[in-house]
């Protein structure tokens, strides 16, 4: 587990260049780190700190605020079983038990082969579809213990590779902003007048 790869450093630099202050690229770079290794490693955080000129403590402090960044190894598939009210009432516990049994781990654990991590999650904003769960943030609505077992077996056997990429994957199509389309970063301390789009309303507004 490691620092960012050369390829990712190139990407990171491209992202850093989009911001007037390198520090602002912190979150996107954490995403890259998580995509690279499936979770955010200590070495990657150090590397990010170097790239954007902050201390590793600042990277850790900012990163750990966000629940979706993981700072310990997680499986290729992160299963989040919703445990909040609607789902709980409609059998979330049964889903959890089925998953635990099928995977041979307890809630919060990771399988020895590094394939699965099982978490209980707070409301996933799909209460009307309760009980529900997510695999790497892809939903399974109104699901049942039987379906959970099937899901796990499908994942294990690679039958859902196309639908569900490994944990941490951001996108399979990478956005690139061609040089002629970018607005370019402007150092905020150099901005002396309000942005153009404000002038009109400022003039029209109360003064």
């Amino acid at each position: 587990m490691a620092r960012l790869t050369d390829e990712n450093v190139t990407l990171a630099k491209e992202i850093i260049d989009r911001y007037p202050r390198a520090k602002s690229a912190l979150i996107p770079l954490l995403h890259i780190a998580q995509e690279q290794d499936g979770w955010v490693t200590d070495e990657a955080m150090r590397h990010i700190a170097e790239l954007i000129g902050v201390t590793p403590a600042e990277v850790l402090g900012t990163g750990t605020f966000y629940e979706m960044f993981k700072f310990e190894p997680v499986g290729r598939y992160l299963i989040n079983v919703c445990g909040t009210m609607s789902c709980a009432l409609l059998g979330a516990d049964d889903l959890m038990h089925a998953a635990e049994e099928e995977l041979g781990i307890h809630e919060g654990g990771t399988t020895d082969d590094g394939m699965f991590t099982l978490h209980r999650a707070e409301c996933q904003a799909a209460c009307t579809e309760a009980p529900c769960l997510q695999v790497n943030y892809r939903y399974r609505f109104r699901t049942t213990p039987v379906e959970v077992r099937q899901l796990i077996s499908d994942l294990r056997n690679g039958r859902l590779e196309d639908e569900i990429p490994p944990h941490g994957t951001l996108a399979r199509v990478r956005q690139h902003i061609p040089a002629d389309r970018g607005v370019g970063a402007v150092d905020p301390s150099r901005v002396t007048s309000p942005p153009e789009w404000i002038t009109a309303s400022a003039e029209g507004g109360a003064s």
Partner: protein
Amino acid sequence: MSEQSVEITVNGKTISAEPGEMVIAAAERAGEFIPRFCYHPRMSSVGMCRQCLVEIDTGRGPMLQPSCMVPVSPGMTVDTESDTTKQAQEGILELLLANHPLDCPVCDKGGECPLQDQAFSHGPGESRYIEEKRHYEKPIDISSLIMLDRERCVLCDRCTRFADEVAGDPLIHFVERGNATQVMTYPDEPFSSHFSGNTAQICPVGALTAKPYRFKARPWDIEQANSTCTSCSVGCEISVHSSRDRVLRYQGIDNDDVNWGWLCDRGRFNFESIHAEGRVTEPLIKTADGHQATSWNAAMSITTELLNESLASAGAPSVGLIGGARGTNEDAWAWARLCTALGIERHDPQIGDGLPAALLGMPRATIRDVASAATVVLLAPDLKEELPVLYLRLRDAVVNGSTRIIEFTATGSGLTRHAWRSIRHGAGDAGSVISATLEDADVQAQLSSGPVVVVAGRGNLATSADVEFAALQKLMTAVDGATVLPALRRGNVVGALQAGLGPTSEAFDTTSTLTAAANGQIEVLVLLGSDPLADFPDRDLATAALNGAGRVVSITGHMNASTADADVVLPAAVMSEKTGSTTNLEGRVLPVAKKVNTPGVARPDWMIAVELADRLGHDLGASSVEGISEQLMSVGAGVGSVWRVPFQASAQEVSVAPKGGYDIDLIVSRVMYDGGVATASSPSLAGLANGRAVAVNPAVLEQFGIDSGEMIRIVSERGSAELPVCPDDRLDRNTVWAAFAQPGRESGFGDVRSLISSSAPVSRVRIERVP
């Protein structure tokens, strides 16, 4: 109060506040204390704890607002005592205590804890929470000096804000979120800031504690006295806390002119050396079997005799005094008068590691001038390492003010990342680099945009003082109206020079006294709280001088290298054991308080001078510290004044030979922790010294095919030293850097001082593989 002051009403009283001032501060000035945890007057307001909620009415009816976040506005009405205010404040305290372990009986903060105090004064008295509290592993080390007990933390953001905003070392940060939020360092990257002790002082609970003080005392057992830190010449205001005749800690006091309440860790924690093992407690006389303790009377008789004899037989030039910059003004004054009375001209408080006293002849600036200057030119050692709190003030001036720094440096410094221009020069060529820089149109425009202050000190101990001073003179001549803040390092160096302990010419300075001693021309060498063997840049000369001097009389608080073989050792009081005053780098005269008794029979330096004078048949005109203080006051050196003695500024030409077979510049400067006696005899600090090493550009390692930590040999015309090497990308390939006075003899590492010759303007070296 300025014209545009703002009138507000607090609890029915009309008060005037500064525009932009926060309600909490305005109310406090008017005598209405609003409880708070996160608010700190020297840091930005963050509204983190909500304890300062009060009812504020700005015309729309009273509303609860955090008074640390709301600036005063005309006609505002504030009620800090209404029922609603009270209810809000009680509610916040109840919430803060919901997770607080309430382990006050075993907590160091107990008795001086804002949480305790405000729970008592503004709390509900009872809690409705019966739930299990949050648990964490009890105190964890976040550095070798500071411990963190997360259970006690109220998440006020003071420590983390201090680290980020004030010190510029954001090595601690809030991590996690919600109930799990905690202050933390990065794993394996401790909070090793030079200023970490301040966080323990400003933490409003017992979450952060400083190891040297843990479990040592309770506030109610403590006696305090206001004094001044003299570990360097910034002169930070401190409160000395003691109990049962032992100093237990120093706390920073907010002095608006100087330190703003902050201290550096060296100044804060080296009080430990006061009670160290190596203190000299009795007068010692060298005999065939080593040092023997004796009485003051016997020791003084011998000293008197030695002085009398050599003055009579070989005259005043046969007596030399080195040191005096570590004592009080009173000490320096008495010794200067004694020298005058005896006709001794060889006296110098600097150990060849400063700049000529003529520096004080330049128009001088205060810290306030530096912090408000349009341009600050740094021609000085790394302030973060040598004058740490001055670094904080300058950093603040750049980050929060509009000051711009132009830095001339051979290696970069703690302020490089805040410098508008950081310009590199090699050893001995600062002068020409300055001239070239001053031709730049942008630089010229900047320099003429407002007041310019030059912070001037000895940037490189391997370059002679004359060369460095010549560069300064060049700069001062070129920049009209610039003033100087002397960045000389020892606590009372400016006071000692102004009291008359400085040499009247180069012929009497430390270098020339040591040279004379090495040539056998010094009968009595008096070391006044100095250790030339450790501090003089040219080690070989210092060694030859101490061997060549007829007799050595050392007046010292601690045994040190130069004292080990002295003929007479007189035990001296150290700071916190004597009363008087000190003068900081601005010339500001600050109080020094006695809080504990001297160990054994040690005496303050001034007393030794007065008695010697008496025995030698002279009257110094004062025989008590008060008497001396009065004399000082009559020359403008009363506590509280800014004392300036005019010095002759002398101009001189120095030529630096072109590079020969040795083509790498040697840069030697001090870092915060070294082998000096105050650090080395403070157990909490001793381990923090870097240790001996030489830093080189990483490419050099590659060229030699060696790894970091392996030995390399550095050779100069003077000598050679084998040292472990470390890569440092701030250096170019023609420069090597080593920290001065580092411990490491034990491990057999060479001493970089053996490369330095005090008669050479610059030190150049070459690097060789160790065979």
